[in-house]
């Protein structure tokens, strides 16, 4: 990992507001050309971190590096940011506004216009070009905003809840575009509470809780770390025989009758027990039909990790309660 080039790296970032500390030594490392999930409960400090990366606010301590360089004003054009709290100028025309936002990101007017028209065609919204923003529905406006975020082909895309307000078809369209952008070389930071989409598209994640990161790493590693040696075992035979076949080596969490003499049992193996030994133990008693490892979902991992963190912090848990909405939290 050490020699890997991180396109975005934050180390020991601290951000204090009057009443509370929004970020308390948060570090993240985003590998190039990956989709990085920035997760955490409401008020954890995600938006504060994103704002620092976007140079909207500055950190009190710590540093942010882009391509190994300390954050500078010129980096603004390398980043495309889709904030969670987003909007457009209501009285402006859609096309005009997109061109304006693209120009602010450093694009030439003619170039912006040309590329916008391509995107509008791709998203099948060409007829909205001359409409006023206030005439658009929420989903329509979201599409327009997504286009303005990615139009200038930024190296880094920061998407805060990019799927909210979209129907499943459009959600899928956006997902495909995000994956495509990554394949074309972009690095994407995704902040969302939609664990399903995290699971689907993220390569790495960081979980922030109470202004600190509590979990970081690649998706597969984290899943492995959080798996609890649980298996769904479907077999034909006697449940009692199954339960008694491997004494003391496992715990029967639940069972479900599939057919007359077919059951699926969810078991958790003891730490010292190998799956092989367990299977050897039960094979004489029942006829196995399938053995499936139970992989924890991101949802489980999220709840598990945050829950554990809450438990650990219970003793010193006073400043958390006084968290206000200062800094514009992500409710």
């Amino acid at each position: 990992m050490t020699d890997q080039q991180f396109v975005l790296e934050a180390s020991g970032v601290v951000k204090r507001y009057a009443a509370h500390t929004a970020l308390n030594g948060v570090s993240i490392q985003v590998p190039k050309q990956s989709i990085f999930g920035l997760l955490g409960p409401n008020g954890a400090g995600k938006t504060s971190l994103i704002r620092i990366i976007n140079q909207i606010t500055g950190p009190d301590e710590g540093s942010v590096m882009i391509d190994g360089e300390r954050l500078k004003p010129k980096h603004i054009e390398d980043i495309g940011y889709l904030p969670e709290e987003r909007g457009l100028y209501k009285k402006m025309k859609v096309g005009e506004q997109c061109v304006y936002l693209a120009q602010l990101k450093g694009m030439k007017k003619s170039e912006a216009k040309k590329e916008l028209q391509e995107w509008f065609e791709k998203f099948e919204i060409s007829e909205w070009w001359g409409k006023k923003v206030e005439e658009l529905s929420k989903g329509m406006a979201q599409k327009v905003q997504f286009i303005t975020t990615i139009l200038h082909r930024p190296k880094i895309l920061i998407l805060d809840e990019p799927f909210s307000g979209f129907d499943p078809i459009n959600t899928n369209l956006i997902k495909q575009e995000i994956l495509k952008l990554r394949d074309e070389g972009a690095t994407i930071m995704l902040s969302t509470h939609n664990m399903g989409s995290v699971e689907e598209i993220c390569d790495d994640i960081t979980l922030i809780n109470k202004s600190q990161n509590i979990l970081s790493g690649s998706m597969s590693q984290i899943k492995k770390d959080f798996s609890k040696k649980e298996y769904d075992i479907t077999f034909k035979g006697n449940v009692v025989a199954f339960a008694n076949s491997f004494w003391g080596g496992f715990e029967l969490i639940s069972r479900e009758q599939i057919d007359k003499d077919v059951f699926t049992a969810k078991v958790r193996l003891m730490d010292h027990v190998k799956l092989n030994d367990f299977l050897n133990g039960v094979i004489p008693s029942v006829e196995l039909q399938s053995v499936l490892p139970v992989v924890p979902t991101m949802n489980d991992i999220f709840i598990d990790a945050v829950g554990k963190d809450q438990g650990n912090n219970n003793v010193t848990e006073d400043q958390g309660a006084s968290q206000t909405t200062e800094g514009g939290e992500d409710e």
Partner: protein
Amino acid sequence: MSKIGLIIKREYGSRVRKKSFIIMTLLGPLLIVGFYALAGIVGLSDSTEMKVLLLDDTYLANSKDFSESADFTFETFNGNLDSLQETIKKDSETPLVGLHITTQTINGDANIYYNKPLSVSKESELISLVTQFTQKLRLKKAEIEPEQYEYISVDMRVISVDVNTGDSKVGVTAGIGFMFALVIYMFIFMYGVMVMRGVIEEKTSRIVEIMVSSVRPFQLMMGKIFGIALVGLTQFFVWVVLSGILMAVVSSAVMPDVFDAANVAGGSEQMISEQLKPAMETGQNERMNEILMEIFNAPWALLLGLFVFYFLGGYLLYASLFAAVGSAVDSETETQQFMLPITIPLIFGFIVSMMSVFNPGGEAIVWLSYIPLTSPVAMLVRVAGGDYAWWEVVISMVTLVLTFILTTKLAAKIYKTGILMYGKKITYKELFKWLRYK
């Protein structure tokens, strides 16, 4: 184009293309000129001849004594007061006036009865006729020949000359200064509030977070402030040009006299010079000529230059404060608690300026012309009034510039934090905390 240039362009373009702006800008001068024209029609240029019934209890007067007027025809009325009133009341068609001269008239008392209200000019003309009549009575009683009286009553034409500059004046230029002060005051308010609304709009529509990821909050704030300043200057320029044209057209075509008065208030150079000629030729109304000459000779270049400077300086100072207020609230209704400290100095400066028109060297206005929160409104009254030294203007200008740099910096800090803060009622204590955030 630079980012701030793009923002200025958008802020300016989106506002000058608004229907309300176009209508206001085009209708403004029409309304002003229309107002004067209306005032002229109602109050000044009432040229219909009117019959006056003269009821004389003293038998000293007869209708010939009053025959000098072209606007009135006098007719001696035989009867008493009741029948006079009755006669006037009966004739509801034509305007009819009764003038009652009693034994008290020589002491300065007379009554006028009418069936239709008299215009201000008609009434004052009638009063001056009665006054002349009474003066004649008194001259006779005091055995003074009319020639002697004419010799005694002097109409002084005093010209005061400033020995430092050699300028002479009759004292109306401070009024010109006040006119500029009024425009500055109005514009600071109008466009300051426009800045505030713009900030609130960006905040409530949530575009602001997208904007600040592309430009620095300071650029966004200054772009808006400069863009709206250009809107203000555009509107002012259009108003001046349109008013000038309209007044020239109306005054030369319709009512030359009325617009002598309009010029004093409207103040356009070209207009004055046009008006000056006929007035001088007829040789009447010398006082009016002096006033017009003085308006004509006022240091227009200096005043206009200072106007632009103080308008921009004052606007920049206040607009940044208005922007800070806009950033701290979620809707316009919440702005009140923060508006008061901003509006009070502005209103105070305006009131003192208004009172200082006839005393431009007074102590209060001198102080206010140094204080940057009031100097944009106060200084022009002093400069136009002529009682100032150049270094005083320089001090006032430098303080204004330094202060707006300072307030803009402070406002930018509040703005930066405020625009990203939603759903929270902000107190003054918090605003001060924001000044410390990075």
